[in-house]
C-alpha cells in the first residue's frame, strides 16, 4: 500500500467519524412525492442518487505513469424521476452527469475527459399481470445479473469492471417482455434491443441489426421477482437464485475493417448464482458469482479487427465471485471479491489475463440511503508491458440516495 493510500485511509476514517457524529447522521429522506389524477392514481417521485468517491491509485500519473494518482470524483450523480399511474403503467427516467472521470478501470487518462450529461434511463413500463410485463425505451438489457443489479445496492463497491457487453453501455434502447411464473419461482425475460447503433453500422459495421437477449432464473426461498436485482438485501430476505442468459446480434463487426470483409456475429452467454441468508443472532451471509463469455467469432484474428471487438469490452470470458458478511447488531458489512478474465486482445497483448481482487466494508447509516464504502483492490496482468502494469486502488465512497 502506497503512502498516498495510507493517507487516504486516515482521511477515510476521519470522514467516517465525521459522518457518524456529525449532522448528516440523521439526514436521509426519501425523495418528494407528488400525487395527482382522480383518486390520486398518479404518483411522481424525484430522487437524487449520488456516489462521491476519493480514489487513490498507486500508479497512473507522471511521465511514465508510475507515480501515484489521487482523485475526487462522482462515480454516479443522478436525478431519477419515477412515476406510476394506476396499477399497470409506470415510467422511470434517470439522468447522469459526470465530469473528468479520468481514473478508468485500467488506466488514468492524460487529458480531462470533460463533462458528460446523458439520459441514462427512459423507460415506459406496462404491467398486464405478474406473468407479463412490457418495458419500452432505454433501460438495462438482459444479460448479466450484476449489470441488472441496482447500482446503489451492490454488495461490493461496484459491479464488475469487466463484464460489459460490446458496442453498448450498461443500457440499450428497445423492448423487453418479462414475467414471473410458478408463484414467482421462475422468471423469464426476452428483449430486442438496438445493439450496435445504426450510425456506427454505416461506417464500420457490416449491417444494422437488432440484438436479441433471453434470460431466465429460478429463485427459491424469498423470490426475486422484480426487473432489477440487488447485490445485497441487507438481511431482509432469504434468497437463492440461479440464472442464465444468452444474447445475440448478427453481423456485428468486421474482422477486417479496412477491406470491410469477414463479418462476425456477436454471441454471449452467462450463468449466475446468488445467495443471501440471514441467521438470527449470527449475521447475514451473502455470496454470488457469475461466468460470462463474450464471443465475436475470433474477430481478433482478422487483419484489421474492429477496435470494439477487442479490448476491455470485446471478445473475452471470465467470472467473478463475491461474498459478504453483515454483523447482526451493527450495520457493518465486510466483503471480498475475486475476478478472473481472459481477453482475446487487450492493449496489444493477445490472450491477456487479468486477475482482480478486492476487500472492503460497507457501513450503512441509513440502509442504502446513506452508506460509506471502503474498498482496496488489486489489478494483476498476466503479461505486463508499458501500458499494462499491476496496480492497486483504494476507494472511499459516500453514497446518498435522497
Amino acid at each position, binding site marked *: 500500500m502506497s503512502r498516498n493510500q495510507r493517507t487516504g485511509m486516515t482521511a477515510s476514517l476521519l470522514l467516517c467519524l465525521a459522518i457518524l457524529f456529525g449532522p448528516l447522521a440523521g439526514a436521509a429522506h426519501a425523495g418528494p412525492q407528488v400525487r395527482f389524477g382522480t383518486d390520486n392514481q398518479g404518483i411522481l417521485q424525484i430522487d437524487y442518487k449520488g456516489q462521491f468517491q476519493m480514489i487513490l491509485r498507486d500508479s497512473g500519473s507522471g511521465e511514465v505513469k508510475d507515480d501515484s494518482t489521487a482523485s475526487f470524483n462522482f462515480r454516479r450523480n443522478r436525478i431519477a424521476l419515477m412515476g406510476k399511474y394506476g396499477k399497470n403503467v409506470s415510467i422511470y427516467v434517470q439522468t447522469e452527469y459526470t465530469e473528468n472521470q479520468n481514473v478508468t478501470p485500467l488506466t488514468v487518462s492524460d487529458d480531462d475527459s470533460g463533462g458528460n450529461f446523458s439520459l441514462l434511463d427512459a423507460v415506459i413500463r406496462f404491467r398486464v399481470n405478474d406473468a407479463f410485463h412490457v418495458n419500452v425505451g432505454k433501460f438495462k438489457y438482459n444479460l448479466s445479473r450484476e449489470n441488472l443489479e441496482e447500482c446503489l445496492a451492490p454488495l461490493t463497491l461496484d459491479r464488475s469492471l469487466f463484464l460489459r457487453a460490446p458496442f453498448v453501455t450498461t443500457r440499450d434502447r428497445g423492448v423487453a417482455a418479462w414475467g414471473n411464473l410458478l408463484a414467482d419461482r421462475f422468471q423469464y425475460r426476452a428483449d430486442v434491443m438496438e445493439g450496435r447503433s445504426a450510425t456506427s453500422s454505416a461506417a464500420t459495421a457490416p449491417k444494422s441489426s437488432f440484438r436479441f437477449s433471453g434470460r431466465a432464473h429460478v429463485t427459491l426461498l424469498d423470490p426475486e421477482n422484480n426487473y432489477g436485482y440487488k447485490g445485497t438485501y441487507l438481511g431482509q430476505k432469504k434468497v437463492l437464485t440461479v440464472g442464465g442468459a444468452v444474447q445475440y446480434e448478427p453481423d456485428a463487426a468486421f474482422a477486417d475493417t479496412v477491406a470491410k470483409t469477414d463479418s462476425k456475429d456477436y454471441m454471449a452467454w452467462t450463468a449466475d448464482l446468488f445467495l443471501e*441468508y440471514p441467521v438470527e443472532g449470527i449475521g447475514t451471509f451473502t455470496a454470488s*458469482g457469475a461466468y460470462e463469455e463474450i464471443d465475436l467469432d475470433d474477430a*481478433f484474428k482478422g487483419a484489421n479487427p474492429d477496435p470494439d471487438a477487442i479490448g476491455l469490452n470485446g471478445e473475452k470470458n471470465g467470472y467473478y465471485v463475491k461474498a459478504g458478511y453483515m454483523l447482526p447488531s451493527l450495520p457493518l458489512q465486510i466483503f471480498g471479491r475475486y475476478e478472473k478474465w481472459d481477453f482475446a486482445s487487450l492493449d496489444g497483448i493477445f490472450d491477456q489475463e487479468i486477475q482482480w481482487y478486492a476487500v472492503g466494508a460497507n457501513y450503512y447509516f441509513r440502509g442504502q440511503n446513506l452508506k460509506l464504502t471502503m474498498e482496496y483492490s488489486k489489478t494483476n496482468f498476466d503479461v505486463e508491458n508499458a501500458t499494462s502494469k499491476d496496480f492497486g486502488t483504494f476507494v472511499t465512497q459516500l453514497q446518498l440516495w435522497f
Partner: protein
Amino acid sequence: MRQRTFQRSSLIFVMLLGGALVPYLTLWGCGGGGFDAPTTTSAPALLSPQTLKTWVDEGKVNGEGYDRVVILDVTTKASYDNASIGHIPGAQLLDTGSDLFQTRIEGIAPAYGMVPDGSRMDALIRKFGIDRNTTIVFTTSSNQPIIFATRAYFTFRYWGFPKECLKVLDGRNKAWNAAYPGTLTAVAPVVTPSTYGVRNLGALNAGLRASLGEMMATVKAASSSVVIVDTRGSDNAVGVGSKYSYDGDFGTTAGVFLPSSPADYVVFEGHMKGGKALGYTSLTDAANNDRFLPVDNLVAKFGAIGVDSSKTAYVYCRTGVIASSEFFLLDAVLGWKTILYDGSWSQWGHISGDSTKGGVLDSWSAWRTDTSALSSLIVYNADNTLLVEKIALDPAAVQMYSNTADLNANQIEKEDAEYMSGSGTSGGGTTTGGGGGGGC
C-alpha cells in the same frame, strides 16, 4: 430449544451452499479458458531456418490475419535480384543502400549512418505491408554479414516495435540455403501496402540509443554499472580485419562522407576511455554458417569483459552496424540492458579539436573527443601521412550548443519523439488504424 435447532440447521445450510459456490464457479472459469495467441511472436528472437520454413509453408509470410510474417532481406539490390545469390521465398528487400541509414545532424555536425527518421520509417513499414499483427524476420544475403540484419533489428526496436515482434534468422540466408538447398529465389513478392506507422506503436525506445552527448557523459561518468564495448575487435579480441582502431592502429577507420577513392580516414584512431574490446566475429561460428554461439558461450564471452545481467553495456563500432550484432544478442537473446551508440567511431573519431591533425573544432570546444578524459590510445591518421576527411560543422548548432549535455543537442531523438507524438515535421504522413501501444 426449537429456535436454536433452526438456527443451527440454517447455518449449516448456508455453509454448505457457500462451500459449493466457490468450486462451482471455479469450474465454470476453467471451462472458458484463454484465446489463441499468435504463435510467431512467442518464437525465439534468434530464429532457426526450420521455424521460418514452417511459417513459409503455413502461408504466414505476407499472409493475412493476426499471425502473419514479413521477411526483410537486409542487403543490396544487386544481391537480392541476383538469381545465383537469391532470397528466401516471400522475402522483401530492405535496401542497405537507400533504406536503412540516414545522415542527420547530431550535436554540432552531420553524422553518417544514423537511424532513419519517422517519415522514412513509415514509408518502409507501409511498403512492406507491416501492420499490428506482423512478426518481422530480418535476414541478409549469404554474401553479406549478419550485422545488416541486426542493424535493422536495432532500428525497428528504436522506433518502438516490441521485442517479441522482431526476429533475426540465425545464420542468415546461408543457413537457410544449407538446410533447404535450391529454394532461394530472385522473384520478388507482390505485397499489399499497409496503413500502419510508427505512431501506432506508442512511444520511441530512445533509451536503446545513445547520442554523442549521452555517450560523452557516459564515458566521463565511468560508472561501475556500465561496460563500454568496442565491437570492432582488437589484437586480443577477434574482430573484422587484422588491424584495429581499438589498438591505435592508424588507417583503420575510413571516412564516411567522401567517395571511397582516394582513401581517407577519420581524424584519429583509438577507443573510448574504459572501453573493452569484443569483436563480433568471436561470437559467431564460422564452421556453422556463421550462426551465433550458444547462449552459455555468449554469457562466457560477455562475462570475460565484465558484462553481465547487472550491467548496462554501451556498444559501438565504426558506424553502428557491427555493434548492432552485440546489441541484438544482449537485448533479444540474453535480455540484458544494452544501448547502442549510433554515431560510433565514424562520429567520435572525427570530433577533434586539433587543427594540425585535421580536426575542425576549436581546441577548447566541449565537444572534442580527442582528449585523455574521453579517449585512449589516440593515434592521429595525419601523423601517418594519411588523407583525413574533414567534417562540415553546422554553424547554427555550433552557436547554439556549447554544452554537450544540452537535450536540444540530441536533435535526432528530439525530432523522432516529436514525430511520434504527431507534432514533428520530419515527413508528414498520418497513420490510421490500431491504437497506441503494442501489437505486432
